[in-house]
């Protein structure tokens, strides 16, 4: 069996690697290619997804993730239009009689002199692009949304999009169309970020000044992505300004950040370095509480990117991210956790029609805790690492087809828990055995235009997941109360002892009625082999990831979505209505009172079953004008059915919030004064309440109703911010702005948790406590600058 699988994989790899040769050789007769890169004129950054349209032909293409485009047309003269939201359109007339390279630079609208009225040419990408269930966010938009303590956060803005629910206030965890927090693939320059939160989720790992592009796929996930059921959040770092040295930064109440970027030598090489650190802990010594005085609580982030253009056809990128949270109390505890990611990419243009990218990626997450108890130092470490090689091709044979294919292999290395007493490691210790896995993915997809109105996107992804030794695998007896271990098997180092494989078809159809409206539908299957041991609603830094294997099957999902997209008012107002139905299989939950940490037999606490999610999403977005922003409404339902949880009856998940409204509005009083607001409303989250009580040995015990049988009060909150920009003058390099913000502006005490507690002094007394976050009328002030 293993030999057969190996042979199969080898032949598939061979087939894939021979495709470029086929592609280069196959040039349909009579077609000539115009290709190149589309970039920002001010910074030299690639413009991902910028469109190229051929006037009179009603045909075109869009730039890939590196800003590369390729169009093959018959010999003739054409007028090409290059467009990107927020940039001035560029028109070029070309005489196409031989293959040509045409690199285009687009000028941002905001750098136009104020007297020029923007004529309002907006791409109708929302309508015409053959992709649905996707949200693209511009950094400008993200930065305008009012934020807690003025710390603008990509993940908090993501939570305001239709189909996305925040799992609990303040956390970075989010649920997409009923999926779990473990079902989101978060990528930073292609590297997986396993824990995207800082300070328990009040902040995310993304430093906005270093981020260029954010895309969230909620469904219709392209075949080049795999590994998670519900969503892909693809975050791309800036490449670094290759025109001039520039600095961006901000000083806030609790953190400051600084980004430096610029060319190295000439325009061929550029760099970006960005740092951020919080300093809330600097105020701790001023506090009266003695334990607070000794506390340490801060995080930092560091982003680094270097890119070098070797020649017209070859380009190298190196990006690195590292960030860490450090907290503890002097003489008592010391803890840290953080991510490290690194991506080395080589863009190679094989021909005018074939673009390739080879990536070598490393992604790590680890935590370490040390605490003093009873005079001994307890140490607890956990870490995981991914090493990935990935090869992707884009082939543009003609304007009607765009083919993507590629292959990726990842080696996963898990060290879930190594706990011991310092200096006495040999004596006492808890170790959850290390384990390893290989994950391979192969994909091919095509985006095909049929006639002028219909575009079909079809793709297939093949995933192979292999557990490799050394490993200790327990065999459990299902049905026994605690899934008792009945056998233990040891596997030697390097031995592949278990393999899962599966096909993930993806299909999307777009029918464009006219420039303003279209109908889209998609169906996709996704498979997830990496699982998160977390049963809290927010996700905590101590959560560990573990692979599918002999005991745990991969999660699978089938999603169907359909939507109608319509633009109004010269495309300045985008609207959409989408509906989805998602059925998930082998989803993971945990038995009552599960022990997920420091438990070598943790897999015995896992229970699996099915989940069903469906919903309707309405979205209206106004891109420009003095008043801009969006309104979204989501109506949704998600339930899980798992044999040994809730007596096998369906139960709502903690992020099942049927009604969800988000209103994000910005009003520009003038170029220098902008008022921004957002209002969030969601049905109260499901919660389990007691329906009975008893006392054993002086301690109050609770008897609970059905899982998540109650709901907390509905959640709503208004945030405001006012941005005051300094005067811009051509002779003045320094540009500054003040941002004043108010989180929870009408001071609602939203339920964060409801607890039933025994009064320690009077056992006969039970009190019901509402816990809410202290962020009530919470002000923030930030000064941002660039020069």
């Amino acid at each position, binding site marked *: 069996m293993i030999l057969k699988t190996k042979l199969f994989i080898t032949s598939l790899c061979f087939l894939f690697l021979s495709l470029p040769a086929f592609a280069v050789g196959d040039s349909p007769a009579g077609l000539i290619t115009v290709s190149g890169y589309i970039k920002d004129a001010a910074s030299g950054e690639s413009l991902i997804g910028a469109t190229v349209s051929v006037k009179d032909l009603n045909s075109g293409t869009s730039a890939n993730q590196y800003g590369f485009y390729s169009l093959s047309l018959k010999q003739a003269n054409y007028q090409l239009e290059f467009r990107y939201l927020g940039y001035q359109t560029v028109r070029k007339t070309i005489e196409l009689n031989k293959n040509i390279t045409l690199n285009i630079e687009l000028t941002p609208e905001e750098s136009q002199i104020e007297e020029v009225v923007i004529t309002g040419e907006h791409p109708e990408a929302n309508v015409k692009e053959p992709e649905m269930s996707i949200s693209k966010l511009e950094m400008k938009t993200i930065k305008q949304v009012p934020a807690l303590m003025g710390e603008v956060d990509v993940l908090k803005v993501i939570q305001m999009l239709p189909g996305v629910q925040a799992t609990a206030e303040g956390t970075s965890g989010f649920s997409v169309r009923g999926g779990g927090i473990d079902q989101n693939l978060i990528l930073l320059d292609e590297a997986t970020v396993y824990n995207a939160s800082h300070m328990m989720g009040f902040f995310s790992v993304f430093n906005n000044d270093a981020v260029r592009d954010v895309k969230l796929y909620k469904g219709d996930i392209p075949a080049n992505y795999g590994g998670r059921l519900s969503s892909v959040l693809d975050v791309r770092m800036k490449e670094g300004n290759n025109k001039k040295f520039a600095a961006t930064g901000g000083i806030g109440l609790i953190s400051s950040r600084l980004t430096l970027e610029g060319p190295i030598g000439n325009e061929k090489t550029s760099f970006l370095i960005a740092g951020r650190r919080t300093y809330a802990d600097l105020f701790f010594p001023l506090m009266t509480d003695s334990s607070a005085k000794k506390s340490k609580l801060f995080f930092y982030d560091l982003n680094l990117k270097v890119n070098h253009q070797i020649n017209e056809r070859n380009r190298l990128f190196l990006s690195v991210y590292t960030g860490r949270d450090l907290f503890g109390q002097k003489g008592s505890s010391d*803890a840290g956790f953080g991510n490290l990611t690194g991506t080395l990419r080589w863009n190679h243009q094989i021909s005018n029609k074939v673009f390739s990218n080879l990536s070598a990626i490393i992604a790590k997450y680890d935590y370490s805790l040390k605490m003093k108890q009873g005079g001994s130092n307890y140490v607890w470490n956990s870490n995981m690492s991914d090493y990935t090689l990935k090869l992707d091709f884009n082939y543009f044979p003609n304007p009607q087809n765009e083919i993507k294919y590629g292959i990726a292999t990842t080696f996963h290395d898990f060290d879930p828990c190594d706990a011991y007493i310092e200096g006495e490691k040999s004596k*006492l210790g808890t170790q959850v055995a290390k384990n390893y896995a290989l994950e391979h993915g192969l994909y091919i997809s095509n985006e095909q235009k049929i006639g002028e109105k219909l575009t079909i996107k079809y793709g297939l992804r093949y995933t192979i997941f292999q557990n490799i030794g050394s490993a200790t695998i327990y065999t459990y007896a299902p049905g026994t109360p605690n899934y008792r271990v009945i056998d233990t098997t040891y596997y030697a180092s390097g031995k592949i002892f278990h393999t899962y494989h599966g096909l993930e078809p993806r299909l999307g159809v777009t029918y464009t009625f006219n420039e303003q409206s279209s109908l889209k539908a998609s169906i996709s299957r996704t498979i997830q082999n990496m699982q998160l041991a977390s049963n809290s609603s927010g996700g905590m830094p101590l959560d560990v990831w573990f692979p599918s294997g002999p005991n745990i099957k991969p999660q699978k999902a089938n999603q169907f979505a359909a939507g109608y997209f319509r633009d109004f008012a010269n495309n300045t107002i985008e609207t959409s209505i989408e509906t989805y139905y998602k059925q998930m299989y082998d989803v993971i939950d945990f038995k009552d009172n599960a022990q997920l940490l420091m438990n070598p037999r943790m897999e015995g606490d896992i229970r699996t079953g099915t989940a069903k999610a469906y919903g309707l999403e309405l979205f209206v977005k106004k891109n420009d004008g003095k008043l801009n922003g969006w309104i979204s409404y989501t109506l949704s339902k998600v339930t899980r059915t798992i044999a040994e949880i809730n007596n096998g009856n369906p139960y709502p998940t903690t992020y099942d919030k049927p009604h969800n409204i988000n209103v994000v509005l910005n009003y520009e009083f003038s170029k220098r004064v902008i008022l921004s607001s957002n209002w969030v409303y969601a049905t109260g989250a499901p919660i389990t309440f007691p329906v009975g009580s008893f006392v054993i040995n002086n301690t109050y015990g609770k008897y609970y109703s059905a899982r998540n049988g109650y709901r907390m009060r509905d959640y709503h909150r208004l945030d405001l911010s006012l941005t005051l920009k300094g005067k811009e003058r051509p002779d003045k390099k320094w540009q500054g702005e003040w941002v004043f913000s108010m989180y929870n502006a009408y001071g609602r005490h939203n339920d964060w948790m409801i*607890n039933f507690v025994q009064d320690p002094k009077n056992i006969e007394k039970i009190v019901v406590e509402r816990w809410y976050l202290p962020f009530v009328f919470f002000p923030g002030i930030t000064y941002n600058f660039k020069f």
Partner: protein
Amino acid sequence: MKYIRIHIIPILVFTISIIAVGCTEIIDNISLDTTRPRLVVEGYISTDVTRQMVKLSKMGDALKKDPIQVISNAEVTISDGSTTFGLTEDQLQKGTYYTAPDVFGVPGRTYTLQIKNVDINGDNVMEEYTAQSLLKRLNPIDSVHLIYNNLYRDTNGWSVNLFSMDPGQGRNFYLIKILRNNQLLTDSVFKYSITDNNGFEGKYFDGYPVYSLREDRKDEKLSPGDTVTVEMYGITEDYYSFISSYISDYYPKVPIFSGPSANIPTNIKPVDDAVGIFTAYSIERKSVIYK
């Protein structure tokens, strides 16, 4: 090694609570469903020669508005397969049933609790409840050391370190109780200290810290001449899960850290009609005089 897990999480929560400190308010008007009444059982049989005890009561409403209703006149027996011990209700403490004073459990035997002549659901049909527990073996405590040092932060005190041999033969579970001058300090479930032998199966507990006596607590501060007694209980996995779930249910839930609220497991059958625990255990004691 559960010791770390049980103690480190509250410390983490504490650290985090610096961010989210002090924001609670009491909810007075919560509306909760009620559920059908169930039998509450608390029963033990130990290796001590003593009056073994079983307490019976009825589950109350979630907010404990009404006083606990004890269950009287039940027929209660504990059997080891060959001998059956009858329990009689204490006339001063209604709902509490005792064996004769000379009863003790034997390691390796499985004990069965039987409760008859109770009608919890009020349908005038008498119900029957049963539970089983193995009495696990335990090795003696060789010695107990008291080590004075800085416990954590500003708090000084005595670490109670234990020396004993784990019996091995698979997973073992322990409950530790501490007495100072014969006064029980761990008098409630939430004060219990529990551990398993994960990582040291069949090995020696070579000065394993099982409890910290804090100098700043009046009942824990030691003076020369004080006697500290460690009671080590060899318990079943059922009882261990019961205590660990009970403790985690006792503390408030925090969205970031806590899993969903869930019922504390019970070994009383039928499980849908009862809560609580019946358990057998071995006890070993060792005292040390603080000089």
